[in-house]
């Protein structure tokens, strides 16, 4: 396990380094000087020169990269070209919207998907089981933003029980307003995500239900509930946990569109704005923070899976092939 931790941790660090290089290069190969964000169309050569000096794009690439890495290590994400405010604190502000949105939606999706997926598998030979899984099939085909728009139409415009969008200016200082502002977005993300989760839970459960070891347990006298509890849960958890890691990562970043539907000041909308304005420090900063989050989630999901499955643990000493 320790060896694995070292190896997987090394991989994590390498991935982070790779991601920062990739991010840096990706943005430098984009056409157009980052300094353009500061300039108007009729800028004089002197103004251009000054702007390039200000954003650092006059220096050679390796030097820019080292500067950037140095800042990263000090957790300094630079200043926005457009607002000239530091990027880091703005990201923190926006995480206060995105993190609760993503985590609540994620938790709600699990709460919906695990029992429904399980029952779907148990009832797979009945018409109601088939109906639920057909509905979840339908659910994964529905665009998130459309679900959001339909919910807005029904609950905000017709029933007027929730706001159609926006976030209180006071933020979490006004918890009631913040909560009602996030209700529909959370519901939107959770509904769409649970549709895909249900299918994973269902297929993992079906695998277990058809497994020989479950049959062995039954032949030795276990009731199906008992066999499911003793053998099924852990066996089904493995594949589901690895999917959960991916799903959490996607939700965290996949809130972009939902934030746009509900006009929420989250990380996603910060990125969209950054891209529209060619605001490089903002783009880099947001992408860096999201990448770190996603890679760390992946790391944790891998560890969790390894703890669940002894067959994976063995592979730490040697190669699996």
């Amino acid at each position, binding site marked *: 396990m320790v060896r694995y931790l070292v190896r997987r941790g090394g*991989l994590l660090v*390498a*991935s982070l380094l*790779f*991601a920062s290089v*990739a991010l840096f290069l*990706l943005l430098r*190969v*984009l*056409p157009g000087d980052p300094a353009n964000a500061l300039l108007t169309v009729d800028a004089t050569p002197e103004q251009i020169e000054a702007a390039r000096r200000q954003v650092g794009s006059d220096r050679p690439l390796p030097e820019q990269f080292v500067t950037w890495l140095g800042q990263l290590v000090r957790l300094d994400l630079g200043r926005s070209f457009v607002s000239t405010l530091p990027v880091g604190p703005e990201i923190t502000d926006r995480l206060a919207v995105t993190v609760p949105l993503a985590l609540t939606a994620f938790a709600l999706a699990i709460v919906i998907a695990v029992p429904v997926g399980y029952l779907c598998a148990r009832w797979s030979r009945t018409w109601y089981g088939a109906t639920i899984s057909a509905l979840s*099939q*339908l659910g*994964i*085909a*529905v*665009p*998130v*933003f*459309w679900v959001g*728009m*339909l919910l*807005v*139409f029904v609950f905000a*415009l017709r029933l007027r029980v929730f706001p159609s969008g926006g976030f209180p200016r006071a933020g979490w200082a006004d918890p009631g307003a913040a909560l009602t502002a996030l209700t529909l977005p959370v519901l939107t993300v959770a509904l769409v995500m649970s549709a895909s989760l249900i299918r994973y839970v269902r297929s993992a459960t079906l695998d277990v239900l058809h497994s020989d070891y479950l049959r062995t347990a039954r032949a030795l006298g276990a009731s199906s509930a008992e066999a499911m509890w003793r053998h099924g849960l852990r066996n089904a958890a493995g594949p589901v946990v690895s999917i959960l890691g991916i799903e959490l*990562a*996607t939700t965290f*970043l*996949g809130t*972009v*569109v939902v934030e*746009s*539907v509900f006009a929420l000041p989250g990380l996603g909308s910060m*990125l*969209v704005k950054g*891209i529209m304005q*060619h605001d490089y420090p903002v*783009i880099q900063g947001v*992408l860096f923070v*999201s*990448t770190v989050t*996603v*890679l760390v989630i*992946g790391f944790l999901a891998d560890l969790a899976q390894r703890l669940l499955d002894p067959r994976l643990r063995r592979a730490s000493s040697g*190669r*699996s*092939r």
Partner: protein
Amino acid sequence: MTRRRRSLVAGAVLVGLLGAVALLSLLWTPFAVSDTSGGRLAPPGGAHLLGTDRLGRDLATQLMVGARIALLTGLGAVAIGGTLGLAAGLAAGFAQRWLDDGIAATLDVVIAFPTLLLAMLVVAARGASLGSAVLALGLAMSAVVARLTRILVKRVLALDFVTAARTSGTSWPRVVAEHVLPNVWPTLVVNLALQFGLAVLAEASLSYLGLGPPPPNQSWGRMLQEAQSTVLTAPAGLVAPGLALVVLVVGANLVADGLREVADPLAGRAS
């Protein structure tokens, strides 16, 4: 007819139907795409089957053109993602130690960027166009396909009969042709059909954010975005493009589900 076969047929019918609409839109549409003669926000019915948008353009026409864009994006992305992904995945599947680790880590990082964000970056670089969308979605997909291929290849290579073939001195190309590809492609095809649906959804999101193919070629995502601003006066505009998206993606997923019948016996052997 088995359930899977029914899925395959139903899915093919749905996708085929939209394919026919897309083809038809090349020859004939009720109105020209940018014809604004219909008057603003005409209700559904009469000459304008689905009504008009806030500029007076015919929504049925836009829906037909949107089918073309959606299918083009999906097919283009699958072509790019499938080719690149299979190549990279095969290479990684056969690679050893550090090279394999390197490729796997690279893929993990690329996959860590959600498709949509990657697409947004490409759009920022190349400008919003159908080409940008297809390229971006194809690239994002190739990482997913590569990772799947790598896992499948590794699994096949670990099988007893493949190990036997390898130790008995069968050449690499023959191992790939006789053991690896036949075991890999069924699962891959199923996955590509699913990826097609995901690409269509991603393009819709991109268009919804205003980063998709520019007007006058309305994609379904953009239609929805415009419908959102007039939802109070013309809520009907929300319905058709959303349903069209669902139909196409459900169709693709049904096809994938049906194809599993082909994949299953082989996948069973590979597990």
